[in-house]
Protein backbone atom coordinates (compact mmCIF):
# COMPACT_ATOMS: atom_id res chain seq x y z
CA UNK A 1 0.00 0.00 0.00
CA UNK A 2 3.05 2.26 0.18
CA UNK A 3 2.82 2.57 -3.55
CA UNK A 4 -0.83 3.61 -3.29
CA UNK A 5 0.05 6.19 -0.62
CA UNK A 6 2.78 7.70 -2.77
CA UNK A 7 0.55 7.76 -5.85
CA UNK A 8 -2.17 9.50 -3.84
CA UNK A 9 0.40 12.03 -2.69
CA UNK A 10 1.87 12.80 -6.08
CA UNK A 11 -1.38 12.46 -8.00
CA UNK A 12 -2.48 15.99 -7.20
CA UNK A 13 0.58 17.68 -8.62
CA UNK A 14 -0.33 21.22 -7.54
CA UNK A 15 -0.86 20.31 -3.88
CA UNK A 16 2.16 18.04 -3.85
CA UNK A 17 4.44 20.76 -5.22
CA UNK A 18 2.80 23.31 -2.94
CA UNK A 19 3.60 21.18 0.09
CA UNK A 20 7.18 20.65 -0.99
CA UNK A 21 7.65 24.34 -1.74
CA UNK A 22 6.23 25.32 1.65
CA UNK A 23 8.54 22.98 3.52
CA UNK A 24 11.53 23.89 1.36
CA UNK A 25 10.93 27.62 1.88
CA UNK A 26 10.43 27.18 5.60
CA UNK A 27 13.60 25.06 5.83
CA UNK A 28 15.57 27.64 3.87
CA UNK A 29 14.32 30.49 6.03
CA UNK A 30 15.06 28.68 9.29
CA UNK A 31 18.53 27.53 8.24
CA UNK A 32 19.34 30.88 6.73
CA UNK A 33 18.30 32.93 9.75
CA UNK A 34 19.77 30.63 12.40
CA UNK A 35 23.08 30.38 10.53
CA UNK A 36 23.35 34.13 9.94
CA UNK A 37 22.41 34.74 13.57
CA UNK A 38 25.08 32.32 14.76
CA UNK A 39 27.60 33.68 12.27
CA UNK A 40 27.10 37.27 13.39
CA UNK A 41 27.39 36.34 17.04
CA UNK A 42 30.47 34.28 16.26
CA UNK A 43 32.04 37.40 14.82
CA UNK A 44 31.93 39.08 18.22
CA UNK A 45 34.83 36.83 19.20
CA UNK A 46 36.68 36.70 15.88
CA UNK A 47 39.81 38.44 17.14
CA UNK A 48 39.94 36.10 20.11
CA UNK A 49 39.68 33.07 17.87
CA UNK A 50 42.43 34.37 15.59
CA UNK A 51 44.95 34.31 18.44
CA UNK A 52 45.94 30.68 18.38
CA UNK A 53 49.19 31.01 20.37
CA UNK A 54 47.67 31.75 23.76
CA UNK A 55 44.93 29.93 25.59
CA UNK A 56 44.12 32.45 28.28
CA UNK A 57 43.10 36.09 28.15
CA UNK A 58 43.61 38.20 31.24
CA UNK A 59 41.75 41.49 31.51
CA UNK A 60 40.30 44.01 33.90
CA UNK A 61 37.97 42.44 36.41
CA UNK A 62 34.98 44.32 34.98
CA UNK A 63 35.56 43.52 31.31
CA UNK A 64 32.59 41.71 29.80
CA UNK A 65 33.46 41.43 26.10
CA UNK A 66 36.31 42.03 23.69
CA UNK A 67 35.49 45.58 22.67
CA UNK A 68 35.15 46.71 26.26
CA UNK A 69 38.68 47.21 27.49
CA UNK A 70 40.04 49.11 30.45
CA UNK A 71 43.77 49.47 30.46
CA UNK A 72 45.72 47.31 32.89
CA UNK A 73 48.77 48.47 34.75
CA UNK A 74 52.12 47.43 33.30
CA UNK A 75 52.85 45.66 36.56
CA UNK A 76 49.87 43.38 35.98
CA UNK A 77 51.85 41.59 33.32
CA UNK A 78 54.56 40.78 35.84
CA UNK A 79 51.98 39.65 38.39
CA UNK A 80 50.40 37.28 35.90
CA UNK A 81 53.79 35.89 34.97
CA UNK A 82 54.30 35.17 38.64
CA UNK A 83 51.29 32.83 38.87
CA UNK A 84 52.23 29.20 39.25
CA UNK A 85 51.52 27.27 36.05
CA UNK A 86 52.06 30.14 33.62
CA UNK A 87 54.38 29.10 30.80
CA UNK A 88 54.55 32.61 29.44
CA UNK A 89 52.50 35.77 29.40
CA UNK A 90 52.69 38.63 26.90
CA UNK A 91 50.92 41.91 26.46
CA UNK A 92 48.31 42.78 23.86
CA UNK A 93 47.06 46.22 22.98
CA UNK A 94 43.74 46.99 21.34
CA UNK A 95 42.91 50.41 19.99
CA UNK A 96 40.82 52.03 17.29
CA UNK A 97 42.86 54.51 15.25
CA UNK A 98 41.55 56.08 12.06
CA UNK A 99 43.24 54.63 9.00
CA UNK A 100 43.63 56.97 6.04
CA UNK A 101 45.01 56.35 2.58
CA UNK A 102 47.09 58.87 0.68
CA UNK A 103 44.16 59.74 -1.54
CA UNK A 104 42.07 60.60 1.52
CA UNK A 105 39.86 57.54 1.99
CA UNK A 106 39.59 56.69 5.66
CA UNK A 107 37.98 54.26 8.10
CA UNK A 108 38.10 53.56 11.81
CA UNK A 109 40.07 50.34 12.35
CA UNK A 110 40.88 47.72 14.93
CA UNK A 111 44.51 47.95 15.78
CA UNK A 112 46.05 45.05 17.69
CA UNK A 113 49.44 45.65 19.18
CA UNK A 114 51.41 42.42 19.57
CA UNK A 115 54.23 41.72 21.95
CA UNK A 116 57.34 43.16 20.29
CA UNK A 117 59.60 40.25 21.14
CA UNK A 118 57.36 37.30 20.30
CA UNK A 119 54.64 38.73 18.02
CA UNK A 120 52.21 36.46 19.84
CA UNK A 121 48.74 36.82 18.31
CA UNK A 122 50.02 37.65 14.81
CA UNK A 123 47.67 36.56 12.01
CA UNK A 124 48.63 33.10 10.84
CA UNK A 125 46.55 33.11 7.67
CA UNK A 126 48.31 35.46 5.26
CA UNK A 127 47.12 36.19 1.72
CA UNK A 128 50.15 38.26 0.81
CA UNK A 129 53.40 39.12 2.58
CA UNK A 130 54.60 37.80 5.90
CA UNK A 131 53.71 38.54 9.49
CA UNK A 132 57.40 38.25 10.41
CA UNK A 133 57.91 41.58 8.61
CA UNK A 134 56.02 43.21 11.48
CA UNK A 135 59.45 43.67 13.06
CA UNK A 136 60.21 46.34 10.44
CA UNK A 137 59.68 50.01 11.30
CA UNK A 138 56.08 51.30 10.85
CA UNK A 139 54.99 47.84 9.69
CA UNK A 140 51.33 46.83 9.80
CA UNK A 141 49.45 43.82 8.50
CA UNK A 142 45.96 44.66 7.29
CA UNK A 143 43.16 42.21 6.68
CA UNK A 144 41.84 41.58 3.19
CA UNK A 145 38.42 43.14 3.79
CA UNK A 146 40.06 46.22 5.29
CA UNK A 147 42.38 46.53 2.32
CA UNK A 148 39.44 46.34 -0.09
CA UNK A 149 37.60 48.93 2.01
CA UNK A 150 40.52 51.36 1.91
CA UNK A 151 41.65 50.57 -1.63
CA UNK A 152 38.45 49.62 -3.45
CA UNK A 153 38.95 48.02 -6.84
CA UNK A 154 42.72 47.97 -6.53
CA UNK A 155 44.88 44.83 -6.64
CA UNK A 156 46.48 43.53 -3.45
CA UNK A 157 49.86 45.18 -3.14
CA UNK A 158 52.45 45.33 -0.38
CA UNK A 159 54.48 48.31 0.81
CA UNK A 160 51.65 50.76 0.38
CA UNK A 161 51.60 53.62 2.82
CA UNK A 162 48.66 54.58 4.99
CA UNK A 163 48.26 56.83 8.00
CA UNK A 164 47.03 55.64 11.40
CA UNK A 165 46.01 58.69 13.43
CA UNK A 166 48.42 60.74 11.33
CA UNK A 167 51.30 58.32 11.88
CA UNK A 168 52.83 56.76 8.80
CA UNK A 169 52.36 53.00 8.48
CA UNK A 170 53.64 50.61 5.86
CA UNK A 171 51.55 47.60 4.79
CA UNK A 172 53.85 44.57 4.96
CA UNK A 173 51.21 41.88 4.76
CA UNK A 174 47.57 41.22 3.94
CA UNK A 175 45.94 38.71 6.23
CA UNK A 176 42.81 36.61 6.03
CA UNK A 177 41.70 37.61 9.52
CA UNK A 178 38.25 36.52 10.65
CA UNK A 179 35.58 39.14 10.06
CA UNK A 180 35.01 41.38 13.08
CA UNK A 181 31.53 42.21 14.36
CA UNK A 182 31.63 45.61 12.65
CA UNK A 183 33.17 45.99 9.21
CA UNK A 184 36.33 47.80 10.22
CA UNK A 185 39.79 47.02 8.89
CA UNK A 186 41.84 44.84 11.26
CA UNK A 187 45.44 45.99 11.66
CA UNK A 188 48.15 44.01 13.37
CA UNK A 189 51.32 45.72 14.44
CA UNK A 190 53.89 45.66 17.24
CA UNK A 191 52.79 46.77 20.70
CA UNK A 192 55.28 49.61 20.87
CA UNK A 193 54.11 50.91 17.53
CA UNK A 194 50.40 50.49 18.22
CA UNK A 195 50.52 52.68 21.30
CA UNK A 196 52.15 55.37 19.16
CA UNK A 197 49.42 55.11 16.56
CA UNK A 198 46.68 55.48 19.12
CA UNK A 199 48.35 58.03 21.30
CA UNK A 200 50.06 57.54 24.60
CA UNK A 201 47.99 57.33 27.75
CA UNK A 202 49.11 56.66 31.28
CA UNK A 203 48.45 52.95 30.84
CA UNK A 204 48.10 51.09 27.55
CA UNK A 205 47.91 47.41 28.29
CA UNK A 206 44.57 46.00 27.09
CA UNK A 207 45.06 42.29 27.60
CA UNK A 208 47.65 39.86 28.82
CA UNK A 209 47.87 36.71 26.74
CA UNK A 210 48.92 33.63 28.67
CA UNK A 211 50.05 30.14 27.74
CA UNK A 212 49.75 27.56 30.57
CA UNK A 213 52.59 25.21 31.29
CA UNK A 214 52.32 21.74 29.84
CA UNK A 215 49.88 19.68 31.88
CA UNK A 216 48.22 22.66 33.52
CA UNK A 217 44.52 22.95 32.84
CA UNK A 218 43.68 26.34 31.35
CA UNK A 219 40.54 26.76 33.47
CA UNK A 220 42.43 25.92 36.62
CA UNK A 221 45.12 28.44 35.69
CA UNK A 222 42.40 31.08 35.11
CA UNK A 223 41.19 30.47 38.66
CA UNK A 224 44.72 30.85 40.01
CA UNK A 225 45.34 34.09 38.07
CA UNK A 226 42.06 35.54 39.29
CA UNK A 227 42.80 34.54 42.85
CA UNK A 228 46.30 35.97 42.84
CA UNK A 229 45.87 39.14 40.78
CA UNK A 230 42.22 40.13 41.16
CA UNK A 231 42.07 40.39 37.38
CA UNK A 232 39.65 38.50 35.20
CA UNK A 233 41.11 35.50 33.36
CA UNK A 234 39.20 33.54 30.74
CA UNK A 235 40.14 30.81 28.35
CA UNK A 236 39.76 31.72 24.67
CA UNK A 237 36.59 29.65 24.47
CA UNK A 238 35.10 31.19 27.59
CA UNK A 239 35.94 34.69 26.42
CA UNK A 240 34.30 34.13 23.05
CA UNK A 241 31.14 32.91 24.78
CA UNK A 242 31.31 35.94 27.08
CA UNK A 243 31.20 38.15 23.98
CA UNK A 244 28.31 36.19 22.48
CA UNK A 245 26.36 36.36 25.74
CA UNK A 246 27.01 40.07 26.05
CA UNK A 247 25.60 40.79 22.60
CA UNK A 248 22.68 38.46 23.21
CA UNK A 249 21.84 40.24 26.41
CA UNK A 250 22.55 43.83 25.45
CA UNK A 251 21.57 44.20 21.78
CA UNK A 252 18.43 43.79 19.70
CA UNK A 253 20.04 41.08 17.58
CA UNK A 254 18.42 38.07 19.29
CA UNK A 255 15.00 39.73 19.29
CA UNK A 256 15.18 40.60 15.58
CA UNK A 257 16.43 37.21 14.53
CA UNK A 258 14.23 35.45 17.04
CA UNK A 259 11.13 37.04 15.55
CA UNK A 260 12.12 35.97 12.04
CA UNK A 261 12.95 32.46 13.19
CA UNK A 262 9.70 32.21 15.13
CA UNK A 263 7.71 33.47 12.13
CA UNK A 264 9.44 30.95 9.86
CA UNK A 265 8.64 28.18 12.31
CA UNK A 266 5.02 29.25 12.72
CA UNK A 267 4.60 29.67 8.97
CA UNK A 268 6.14 26.23 8.52
CA UNK A 269 3.90 24.58 11.07
CA UNK A 270 0.72 26.37 10.06
CA UNK A 271 1.10 26.39 6.29
CA UNK A 272 2.77 23.01 5.83
CA UNK A 273 0.64 21.42 8.52
CA UNK A 274 -2.58 22.93 7.22
CA UNK A 275 -1.79 22.11 3.60
CA UNK A 276 -1.06 18.51 4.47
CA UNK A 277 -4.15 18.35 6.67
CA UNK A 278 -6.33 19.77 3.89
CA UNK A 279 -4.73 17.34 1.46
CA UNK A 280 -5.82 14.48 3.72
CA UNK A 281 -9.29 15.95 4.30
CA UNK A 282 -9.85 16.33 0.58
CA UNK A 283 -8.89 12.69 0.15
CA UNK A 284 -11.11 11.46 2.97
CA UNK A 285 -13.44 9.67 0.58
CA UNK A 286 -10.45 7.86 -0.92
CA UNK A 287 -9.31 6.87 2.54
CA UNK A 288 -12.88 5.78 3.26
CA UNK A 289 -12.83 3.54 0.21
CA UNK A 290 -9.51 2.07 1.30
CA UNK A 291 -10.85 1.51 4.82
CA UNK A 292 -13.97 -0.17 3.47
CA UNK A 293 -11.82 -2.49 1.38
CA UNK A 294 -10.17 -3.66 4.57
CA UNK A 295 -7.00 -1.70 5.19
CA UNK A 296 -6.12 -1.75 8.90
CA UNK A 297 -5.60 1.36 11.00
CA UNK A 298 -1.91 0.59 11.36
CA UNK A 299 -1.57 0.42 7.61
CA UNK A 300 -3.39 3.74 7.26
CA UNK A 301 -1.09 5.29 9.85
CA UNK A 302 1.86 3.99 7.86
CA UNK A 303 0.46 5.42 4.64
CA UNK A 304 -0.08 8.89 6.08
CA UNK A 305 3.30 8.96 7.81
CA UNK A 306 4.90 7.86 4.56
CA UNK A 307 3.17 10.70 2.72
CA UNK A 308 4.11 13.23 5.39
CA UNK A 309 7.74 12.18 5.59
CA UNK A 310 8.11 11.93 1.82
CA UNK A 311 7.11 15.56 1.33
CA UNK A 312 9.03 16.45 4.49
CA UNK A 313 12.28 14.86 3.35
CA UNK A 314 12.03 16.18 -0.21
CA UNK A 315 11.11 19.70 0.96
CA UNK A 316 13.81 19.67 3.63
CA UNK A 317 16.44 18.50 1.14
CA UNK A 318 15.51 21.18 -1.38
CA UNK A 319 15.45 23.84 1.35
CA UNK A 320 18.83 22.72 2.67
CA UNK A 321 20.21 22.77 -0.87
CA UNK A 322 18.91 26.31 -1.33
CA UNK A 323 20.47 27.39 1.96
CA UNK A 324 23.78 25.72 1.07
CA UNK A 325 23.85 27.48 -2.27
CA UNK A 326 22.97 30.78 -0.58
CA UNK A 327 25.88 30.51 1.85
CA UNK A 328 28.17 29.22 -0.86
CA UNK A 329 27.46 32.37 -2.84
CA UNK A 330 27.47 34.90 -0.03
CA UNK A 331 30.34 33.21 1.79
CA UNK A 332 32.56 34.43 -1.03
CA UNK A 333 31.56 38.04 -0.47
CA UNK A 334 33.83 39.99 1.87
CA UNK A 335 30.99 41.49 3.88
CA UNK A 336 29.47 38.09 4.65
CA UNK A 337 32.62 35.99 4.77
CA UNK A 338 32.79 33.41 7.49
CA UNK A 339 29.02 33.09 7.78
CA UNK A 340 28.34 29.51 6.87
CA UNK A 341 25.49 27.01 6.93
CA UNK A 342 26.08 25.40 10.30
CA UNK A 343 25.41 21.70 10.78
CA UNK A 344 23.72 22.56 14.05
CA UNK A 345 21.30 24.74 12.10
CA UNK A 346 20.61 21.92 9.63
CA UNK A 347 20.03 19.50 12.51
CA UNK A 348 17.81 21.95 14.38
CA UNK A 349 15.76 22.70 11.28
CA UNK A 350 15.52 18.99 10.53
CA UNK A 351 14.13 18.47 14.02
CA UNK A 352 11.62 21.29 13.48
CA UNK A 353 10.51 19.80 10.17
CA UNK A 354 10.04 16.39 11.79
CA UNK A 355 7.92 18.12 14.43
CA UNK A 356 5.89 19.91 11.74
CA UNK A 357 5.22 16.72 9.82
CA UNK A 358 4.42 14.71 12.95
CA UNK A 359 1.91 17.37 14.04
CA UNK A 360 0.40 17.50 10.55
CA UNK A 361 0.25 13.69 10.47
CA UNK A 362 -1.43 13.51 13.87
CA UNK A 363 -4.10 16.01 12.81
CA UNK A 364 -4.65 14.18 9.54
CA UNK A 365 -4.59 10.74 11.14
CA UNK A 366 -7.24 11.75 13.60
CA UNK A 367 -9.62 12.55 10.76
CA UNK A 368 -8.82 9.36 8.90
CA UNK A 369 -8.97 7.03 11.90
CA UNK A 370 -12.34 8.34 13.14
CA UNK A 371 -13.70 8.31 9.60
CA UNK A 372 -16.59 5.90 9.17
CA UNK A 373 -15.88 3.90 6.05
CA UNK A 374 -19.63 3.92 5.41
CA UNK A 375 -18.97 7.40 3.98
CA UNK A 376 -18.25 5.64 0.70
CA UNK A 377 -21.93 4.74 0.32
CA UNK A 378 -22.95 8.38 0.35
CA UNK A 379 -23.40 9.71 -3.14
Amino acid at each position, binding site marked *: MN*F*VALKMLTGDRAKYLGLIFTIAFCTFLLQNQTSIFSGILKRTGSQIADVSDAEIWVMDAKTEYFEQTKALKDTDLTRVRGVDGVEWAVKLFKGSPVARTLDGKFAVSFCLGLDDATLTGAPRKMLLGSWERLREPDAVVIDHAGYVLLFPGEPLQLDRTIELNDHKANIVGISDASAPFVSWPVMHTRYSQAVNFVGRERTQLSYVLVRPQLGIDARELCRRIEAQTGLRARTSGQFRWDCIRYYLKNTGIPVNFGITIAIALIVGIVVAGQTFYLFTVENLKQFGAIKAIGVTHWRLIGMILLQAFTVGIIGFSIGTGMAAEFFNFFGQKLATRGIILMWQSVALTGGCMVLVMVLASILSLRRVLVLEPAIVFR*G
Partner: protein
Amino acid sequence: MSAKMIPAVQCRDLRKDFGEGTTQVQVLRGVNFDAAQGQLTFLVGPSGCGKTTLVSVIAGLLDSSGGEVELFNQNVEQFSARERILFRRKNLGFVYQQYNLLPALTSAENAAVPLLAAGVRRRAAVDQAKAVLVKLGMEERLDTLPSKLSGGQQQRVALARALVHEPRLILCDEPTAALDHATGEAVMDLLAGNAVHPDRAVIVVTHDTRVFHYADAIAHMDDGRIVKTESRRPITTPEVLDGVATFA
Protein backbone atom coordinates in the same frame (compact mmCIF):
# COMPACT_ATOMS: atom_id res chain seq x y z
CA MET B 1 -39.10 -22.95 -5.43
CA SER B 2 -37.37 -26.25 -5.18
CA ALA B 3 -33.74 -25.38 -4.68
CA LYS B 4 -32.08 -25.16 -1.29
CA MET B 5 -30.74 -21.76 -0.33
CA ILE B 6 -27.28 -21.60 1.26
CA PRO B 7 -27.44 -18.38 3.23
CA ALA B 8 -24.66 -15.88 2.77
CA VAL B 9 -26.30 -13.07 4.72
CA GLN B 10 -28.82 -13.46 7.51
CA CYS B 11 -30.18 -10.44 9.34
CA ARG B 12 -32.53 -10.96 12.25
CA ASP B 13 -34.46 -8.15 13.92
CA LEU B 14 -31.71 -5.79 12.88
CA ARG B 15 -31.97 -2.26 14.23
CA LYS B 16 -29.93 0.84 13.70
CA ASP B 17 -30.52 4.18 15.40
CA PHE B 18 -28.72 7.44 14.80
CA GLY B 19 -28.58 10.17 17.43
CA GLU B 20 -29.92 10.09 20.96
CA GLY B 21 -32.93 11.27 22.93
CA THR B 22 -35.29 13.55 21.08
CA THR B 23 -33.03 13.65 18.04
CA GLN B 24 -32.84 9.86 17.73
CA VAL B 25 -33.77 8.49 14.33
CA GLN B 26 -34.57 4.80 13.89
CA VAL B 27 -33.31 3.93 10.44
CA LEU B 28 -33.54 0.13 10.67
CA ARG B 29 -36.56 -1.04 12.67
CA GLY B 30 -36.13 -4.78 12.97
CA VAL B 31 -34.97 -5.92 9.57
CA ASN B 32 -35.13 -9.60 8.67
CA PHE B 33 -33.26 -10.18 5.48
CA ASP B 34 -31.49 -13.12 3.84
CA ALA B 35 -29.35 -13.29 0.75
CA ALA B 36 -28.27 -16.58 -0.74
CA GLN B 37 -25.06 -17.67 -2.39
CA GLY B 38 -25.36 -18.00 -6.14
CA GLN B 39 -27.99 -15.28 -6.30
CA LEU B 40 -28.21 -11.69 -7.35
CA THR B 41 -30.39 -10.16 -4.65
CA PHE B 42 -31.80 -6.69 -5.15
CA LEU B 43 -32.62 -4.46 -2.24
CA VAL B 44 -35.08 -1.83 -3.40
CA GLY B 45 -37.19 0.89 -1.87
CA PRO B 46 -37.69 4.65 -1.71
CA SER B 47 -34.98 7.07 -0.75
CA GLY B 48 -34.37 7.21 2.98
CA CYS B 49 -35.92 3.82 3.67
CA GLY B 50 -32.65 2.48 5.10
CA LYS B 51 -31.17 0.47 2.20
CA THR B 52 -27.71 1.98 2.37
CA THR B 53 -27.66 1.76 6.15
CA LEU B 54 -28.60 -1.91 5.95
CA VAL B 55 -25.81 -2.60 3.47
CA SER B 56 -23.35 -0.66 5.64
CA VAL B 57 -24.28 -2.73 8.70
CA ILE B 58 -24.04 -5.97 6.71
CA ALA B 59 -20.58 -4.91 5.51
CA GLY B 60 -19.48 -4.15 9.06
CA LEU B 61 -18.94 -0.50 8.18
CA LEU B 62 -21.55 0.53 10.75
CA ASP B 63 -22.42 -1.09 14.07
CA SER B 64 -26.01 -2.10 14.56
CA SER B 65 -28.05 -0.93 17.53
CA GLY B 66 -29.58 -4.37 18.03
CA GLY B 67 -30.39 -7.66 16.37
CA GLU B 68 -28.01 -9.98 14.57
CA VAL B 69 -26.08 -10.10 11.33
CA GLU B 70 -24.54 -13.37 10.19
CA LEU B 71 -22.32 -13.60 7.19
CA PHE B 72 -21.59 -17.15 6.09
CA ASN B 73 -22.89 -18.35 9.45
CA GLN B 74 -20.54 -16.10 11.43
CA ASN B 75 -21.87 -13.38 13.66
CA VAL B 76 -19.68 -10.52 12.51
CA GLU B 77 -20.86 -8.22 15.28
CA GLN B 78 -19.00 -10.38 17.76
CA PHE B 79 -15.75 -9.83 15.90
CA SER B 80 -13.19 -7.39 17.21
CA ALA B 81 -12.62 -4.28 15.09
CA ARG B 82 -9.49 -5.79 13.59
CA GLU B 83 -11.15 -9.15 12.90
CA ARG B 84 -13.96 -7.32 11.18
CA ILE B 85 -11.51 -5.44 8.96
CA LEU B 86 -9.69 -8.62 8.05
CA PHE B 87 -12.97 -10.45 7.40
CA ARG B 88 -14.11 -7.61 5.15
CA ARG B 89 -10.82 -7.56 3.29
CA LYS B 90 -11.04 -11.26 2.53
CA ASN B 91 -14.73 -11.81 1.97
CA LEU B 92 -16.34 -8.60 0.74
CA GLY B 93 -16.22 -6.60 -2.46
CA PHE B 94 -17.85 -3.23 -3.04
CA VAL B 95 -19.28 -1.36 -6.00
CA TYR B 96 -20.38 2.19 -5.31
CA GLN B 97 -22.63 4.65 -7.08
CA GLN B 98 -19.78 7.15 -7.33
CA TYR B 99 -17.18 4.46 -8.16
CA ASN B 100 -14.75 5.79 -5.49
CA LEU B 101 -11.72 5.06 -7.62
CA LEU B 102 -8.42 6.58 -6.54
CA PRO B 103 -7.81 9.32 -9.12
CA ALA B 104 -4.02 8.94 -9.09
CA LEU B 105 -4.08 5.22 -9.90
CA THR B 106 -4.58 3.65 -13.32
CA SER B 107 -7.45 1.26 -13.96
CA ALA B 108 -5.28 -1.77 -13.26
CA GLU B 109 -3.81 -0.24 -10.13
CA ASN B 110 -7.26 0.71 -8.85
CA ALA B 111 -8.55 -2.78 -9.45
CA ALA B 112 -5.51 -4.18 -7.65
CA VAL B 113 -6.10 -2.27 -4.41
CA PRO B 114 -7.82 -5.14 -2.50
CA LEU B 115 -4.90 -7.42 -3.36
CA LEU B 116 -2.38 -4.78 -2.30
CA ALA B 117 -4.28 -4.35 0.95
CA ALA B 118 -3.99 -8.10 1.47
CA GLY B 119 -0.23 -7.91 1.06
CA VAL B 120 0.10 -9.23 -2.50
CA ARG B 121 3.16 -7.79 -4.22
CA ARG B 122 2.49 -4.90 -6.53
CA ARG B 123 3.40 -6.56 -9.83
CA ALA B 124 1.45 -9.73 -9.09
CA ALA B 125 -1.55 -7.73 -7.89
CA VAL B 126 -1.60 -5.50 -10.95
CA ASP B 127 -1.21 -8.49 -13.29
CA GLN B 128 -4.12 -10.22 -11.60
CA ALA B 129 -6.20 -7.03 -11.80
CA LYS B 130 -5.41 -6.68 -15.49
CA ALA B 131 -6.70 -10.19 -16.13
CA VAL B 132 -10.02 -9.31 -14.48
CA LEU B 133 -10.24 -6.03 -16.38
CA VAL B 134 -9.67 -7.86 -19.65
CA LYS B 135 -12.59 -10.15 -18.80
CA LEU B 136 -14.70 -7.04 -18.30
CA GLY B 137 -13.72 -5.67 -21.70
CA MET B 138 -11.27 -3.06 -20.45
CA GLU B 139 -8.16 -4.30 -22.23
CA GLU B 140 -7.76 -0.96 -24.02
CA ARG B 141 -7.90 1.04 -20.80
CA LEU B 142 -5.65 -0.85 -18.40
CA ASP B 143 -3.23 2.02 -17.85
CA THR B 144 -5.73 4.85 -18.05
CA LEU B 145 -6.47 7.17 -15.15
CA PRO B 146 -10.10 7.37 -13.94
CA SER B 147 -10.39 10.97 -15.15
CA LYS B 148 -9.95 9.71 -18.72
CA LEU B 149 -12.64 7.04 -18.41
CA SER B 150 -16.37 7.29 -19.07
CA GLY B 151 -18.81 6.58 -16.26
CA GLY B 152 -19.46 3.08 -17.55
CA GLN B 153 -15.75 2.35 -17.83
CA GLN B 154 -15.16 3.62 -14.30
CA GLN B 155 -17.90 1.37 -13.03
CA ARG B 156 -16.26 -1.57 -14.79
CA VAL B 157 -13.00 -0.77 -13.01
CA ALA B 158 -14.94 -0.62 -9.75
CA LEU B 159 -16.47 -3.99 -10.60
CA ALA B 160 -13.02 -5.41 -11.30
CA ARG B 161 -11.87 -4.07 -7.93
CA ALA B 162 -14.82 -5.83 -6.28
CA LEU B 163 -14.04 -9.12 -8.04
CA VAL B 164 -10.26 -9.26 -8.08
CA HIS B 165 -9.78 -10.91 -4.71
CA GLU B 166 -12.66 -13.32 -5.30
CA PRO B 167 -14.79 -12.32 -2.33
CA ARG B 168 -17.79 -14.34 -1.16
CA LEU B 169 -20.10 -11.35 -0.93
CA ILE B 170 -20.34 -8.36 -3.23
CA LEU B 171 -22.29 -5.31 -2.14
CA CYS B 172 -23.32 -2.86 -4.83
CA ASP B 173 -24.83 0.49 -3.98
CA GLU B 174 -26.78 1.99 -6.87
CA PRO B 175 -24.25 0.77 -9.44
CA THR B 176 -26.27 2.12 -12.38
CA ALA B 177 -27.60 5.33 -10.87
CA ALA B 178 -24.93 7.54 -12.44
CA LEU B 179 -25.14 5.83 -15.84
CA ASP B 180 -27.43 6.12 -18.82
CA HIS B 181 -29.74 3.22 -19.56
CA ALA B 182 -27.57 1.44 -22.12
CA THR B 183 -24.42 1.76 -20.03
CA GLY B 184 -26.32 0.68 -16.92
CA GLU B 185 -27.57 -2.40 -18.75
CA ALA B 186 -24.03 -3.18 -19.88
CA VAL B 187 -22.71 -2.88 -16.34
CA MET B 188 -25.50 -5.09 -15.01
CA ASP B 189 -24.75 -7.62 -17.76
CA LEU B 190 -21.16 -7.74 -16.58
CA LEU B 191 -22.20 -7.92 -12.94
CA ALA B 192 -24.62 -10.77 -13.58
CA GLY B 193 -22.20 -12.53 -15.87
CA ASN B 194 -19.07 -12.21 -13.76
CA ALA B 195 -20.03 -11.64 -10.17
CA VAL B 196 -22.72 -14.23 -9.70
CA HIS B 197 -21.12 -17.47 -8.69
CA PRO B 198 -22.29 -20.49 -6.71
CA ASP B 199 -19.99 -19.59 -3.83
CA ARG B 200 -20.82 -15.94 -3.82
CA ALA B 201 -23.77 -13.72 -3.00
CA VAL B 202 -24.34 -10.39 -4.69
CA ILE B 203 -26.55 -7.73 -3.13
CA VAL B 204 -27.51 -4.76 -5.26
CA VAL B 205 -29.12 -1.70 -3.75
CA THR B 206 -30.98 0.11 -6.50
CA HIS B 207 -33.80 2.45 -7.42
CA ASP B 208 -33.44 1.62 -11.06
CA THR B 209 -36.52 -0.37 -12.04
CA ARG B 210 -35.10 -0.84 -15.55
CA VAL B 211 -32.59 -3.35 -14.27
CA PHE B 212 -34.91 -5.37 -12.01
CA HIS B 213 -35.01 -8.16 -14.58
CA TYR B 214 -31.44 -9.10 -13.57
CA ALA B 215 -32.55 -9.95 -10.04
CA ASP B 216 -32.83 -13.51 -8.76
CA ALA B 217 -34.56 -12.18 -5.67
CA ILE B 218 -35.86 -8.79 -4.68
CA ALA B 219 -36.33 -7.48 -1.15
CA HIS B 220 -38.53 -4.39 -0.93
CA MET B 221 -37.72 -2.08 1.90
CA ASP B 222 -39.74 0.76 3.35
CA ASP B 223 -39.46 2.79 6.52
CA GLY B 224 -36.63 0.70 7.94
CA ARG B 225 -38.18 -2.72 7.35
CA ILE B 226 -38.29 -5.38 4.65
CA VAL B 227 -41.92 -5.20 3.57
CA LYS B 228 -41.97 -7.71 0.72
CA THR B 229 -39.74 -10.29 -0.88
CA GLU B 230 -39.85 -11.86 -4.30
CA SER B 231 -37.95 -14.75 -5.78
CA ARG B 232 -37.54 -14.27 -9.50
CA ARG B 233 -35.52 -17.34 -10.37
CA PRO B 234 -34.94 -20.65 -8.70
CA ILE B 235 -31.44 -21.47 -7.58
CA THR B 236 -30.06 -23.91 -10.06
CA THR B 237 -26.52 -24.49 -8.97
CA PRO B 238 -25.72 -28.07 -7.92
CA GLU B 239 -24.79 -27.05 -4.41
CA VAL B 240 -28.10 -25.41 -3.66
CA LEU B 241 -30.66 -27.86 -4.94
CA ASP B 242 -33.66 -29.19 -3.04
CA GLY B 243 -34.73 -26.49 -0.70
CA VAL B 244 -36.72 -23.29 -0.67
CA ALA B 245 -35.38 -19.79 -0.91
CA THR B 246 -37.16 -17.65 1.56
CA PHE B 247 -37.12 -14.19 2.95
CA ALA B 248 -38.15 -13.88 6.52
